[in-house]
C-alpha cells in the first residue's frame, strides 16, 4: 500500500483514456436509449404519437386497471414459474449430468458435446423447430408416442393451457442444460481432490457426499447459474414468441412480461392496440424487478466469496 502513490505518479494522464471507448459505446447505445424509453412511460400516447406529460398515471393503469393488472399479474406468475421450473429441471439435470461427467462416465467428452450442442442454435430456430416437433397431428413427438402405444400421452402440447407453458419451459431447459452443466463441471473440477479423498476415507459417500461436501464447495457457480437463469427467465421472449405468437396464447397461458411488453408497445400482429405509455411503464417495472433481485444475488456472491 505504501508504494502506491509513487506508482500512480509514474502513470501518465493517458491512462484515463483506457475506459473511454467502452464507456462511450456503452453510454450511447445502452444507457441513453433505455433512459429515453423510460421517459416515455411518463407521457400519454395515442397509438404511436406522443401527447402530454401525465406523470405516473401509466404505472397506475398498469398496476390497477383491468385488464392490464390481471395481465401483468398473470405474466409475472408465468415468469416465476419459468424460473422455478428451470432451476429445478434444467439446473437439476445439469448438476446431475455434470456430476456423472465429473465421476468419469464413459465417453464423457462426447456427452459434453452432445449436451451443449442445442445451446448453439438461435432461440428463434429452437422455437420454430420445437413448434414443428410438438405439432399435435404431424409433429414427431406425438407420432412417436403413437407408435410406442402411448397415444394417451400424445397431448395437444402447445394448444392446451394446461401444458403449453410447461412445454415451452421444458424446451428452454433442453436448450439451456448444456451451459449450466459446463459451469457446474468447471466448479466441480476446481474442488481440490484431497478434500474429497479425505471425506471418502471418513466414509462419506453417495448423497451425503454431494449434500455436505460438494454443494458447499460449488456455491459460487451455483449462484452464478441462478443469476443467469433468473435474468434469462425474466426476460423470456423469443421462445414464447416463436412458438405461440405475441398473444402468449392459448388464452394468455404462456404470456410473460416481455411478451406482454412487446404486445403493448407494438400492438398485436394485425390490430391497432399499441400503447407505448403503458408498455414503457411495464419496461421500467421489469427493469427494477430484475435489477433489485440480481443485485441481491450479486451481494450474496460477495458474501460467499469472502467466507
Amino acid at each position: 500500500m505504501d508504494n502506491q502513490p509513487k506508482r500512480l505518479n509514474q502513470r501518465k494522464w493517458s491512462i484515463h483514456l483506457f475506459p473511454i471507448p467502452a464507456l462511450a459505446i456503452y453510454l450511447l447505445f445502452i444507457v441513453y436509449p433505455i433512459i429515453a424509453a423510460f421517459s416515455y412511460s411518463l407521457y400519454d400516447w395515442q397509438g404511436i404519437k406522443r401527447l402530454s406529460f401525465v406523470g405516473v398515471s401509466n404505472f397506475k393503469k398498469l398496476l390497477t386497471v383491468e385488464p392490464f393488472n390481471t395481465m401483468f399479474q398473470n405474466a409475472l406468475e408465468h415468469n416465476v414459474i419459468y424460473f422455478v421450473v428451470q432451476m429445478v429441471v434444467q439446473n437439476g439435470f445439469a448438476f446431475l449430468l455434470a456430476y456423472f461427467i465429473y465421476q468419469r462416465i464413459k465417453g464423457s467428452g462426447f456427452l459434453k458435446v452432445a449436451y451443449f450442442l442445442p445451446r448453439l442454435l438461435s432461440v428463434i430456430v429452437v422455437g420454430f423447430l420445437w413448434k414443428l416437433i410438438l405439432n399435435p397431428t404431424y409433429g414427431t413427438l406425438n407420432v412417436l408416442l403413437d407408435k410406442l402405444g402411448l397415444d394417451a400421452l400424445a397431448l395437444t402440447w402447445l394448444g392446451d393451457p394446461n401444458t403449453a407453458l410447461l412445454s415451452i419451459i421444458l424446451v428452454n431447459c433442453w436448450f439451456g442444460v448444456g451451459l449450466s452443466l459446463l459451469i457446474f463441471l468447471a466448479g466441480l473440477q476446481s474442488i481440490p481432490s484431497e478434500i474429497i479423498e479425505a471425506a471418502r476415507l471418513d466414509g462419506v459417500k453417495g448423497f451425503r457426499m454431494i449434500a455436505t461436501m460438494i454443494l458447499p464447495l460449488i456455491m459460487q457457480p451455483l449462484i452464478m447459474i441462478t443469476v443467469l437463469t433468473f435474468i434469462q427467465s425474466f426476460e423470456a421472449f423469443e421462445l414464447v414468441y416463436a412458438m405461440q405468437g405475441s398473444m402468449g396464447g392459448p388464452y394468455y397461458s404462456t404470456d410473460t412480461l416481455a411478451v406482454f411488453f412487446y404486445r403493448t408497445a407494438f400492438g398485436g400482429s394485425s390490430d391497432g392496440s399499441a400503447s407505448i405509455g403503458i408498455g414503457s411503464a411495464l419496461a421500467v417495472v421489469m427493469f427494477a424487478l430484475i435489477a433489485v433481485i440480481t443485485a441481491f444475488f450479486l451481494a450474496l456472491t460477495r458474501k460467499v466469496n469472502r467466507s
Partner: protein
Amino acid sequence: MRPSMTYRTIQHLIGYAFAVLSLYPVFLMIASSFKTTIAIFTHPLALPEKISFVAYDKLLDQMPFGHYLWNSVLVSGASVALILISSAFAAYYISRTHYKWNSALLFIFLLGMMIPIKLGIVPLFLLMKNLGLSNTLWSLILIYTAIGIPLGIMIMAGFFKTLPKELEEAGRIDGCNDMQILSRIVIPLMRPAIGTVMIINFVTAWNDFFFPLIFIQDEVMKTIQVGMMSLFGEYESDWSTLFAGLTLASLPMVLMFVFASRQFMDGMTAGAVK
C-alpha cells in the same frame, strides 16, 4: 471405494438417454430437410429414402444466402473484435489502477447486464438514424458491441485481478508504460479470458434476430437469422423448406462447434467461474 455396478449402469443409462434427447431434435431437423414435405407428413420418423435437395435448391435460388452468411460473419466478427479491444482497456483500468471511482465504474458497466435493451428499441432506432447508421451493418456491429461490453469487462476485470502483480512490476522496472505492459505482458497471458469473451459474444451476435429485424431493410444487408425467418411467412405449410431453412441458419455455428468444441465449451464457462 468404487461406485457399485448398479449405480454405474444407471448413470450411463441416464447420461446417454439425455445425449439422445439433446441430439435427436437437431438430427431430425437436418434429416427432415432432405425429405419431401409429403414424406415428412406421412413418415415423420423415417430416414430420408433418397436425399432430396429440392428444399435447398428452392432456398438458395430465392434468397441471397451468400449475402446473409457474409453479413453474419462480418457483424459477429467485427463486434467481437470491438468488444475485446474496448473491454480489455476498460477492464485493465478498472482492476489495475486504484482510483476511487473504479468500483462505481465497474458497477455502472455491470448494471448493463440487467438492462433489457430491447425495451429501448424505439430511441435506439432513432439514434441509429440520426447517426446515419440505420440500414447499415454498423448499426448491428455497434449494438452488439454495446451489449457485449458489460460481460466482457466483468470477465476480463476478474481475470486481471488474478494476474500476479509482480509481472507488472517487473515490466515497469524495465521502463514499460501502461500501454506496453498491457500489450506485451498482460494480453498474451489472457488467452482463456479472450476465448470466453469471444465465443459468448460471437454466438450471441450470430443468433440474434431482433435487431436486424428492426434495423435492416435491404434484402442484401440481412443476417442469416432474419433472412431465414422470413421463410416462415412464405412457406408456412412447406415443412421441408422450413427444416432446410432452420438447418442453413444453424449449420455454420454447428460446424464451427464440431471443429472447435473444446474452445467453445471452455470459452463459454472459463470466465464464469473465475
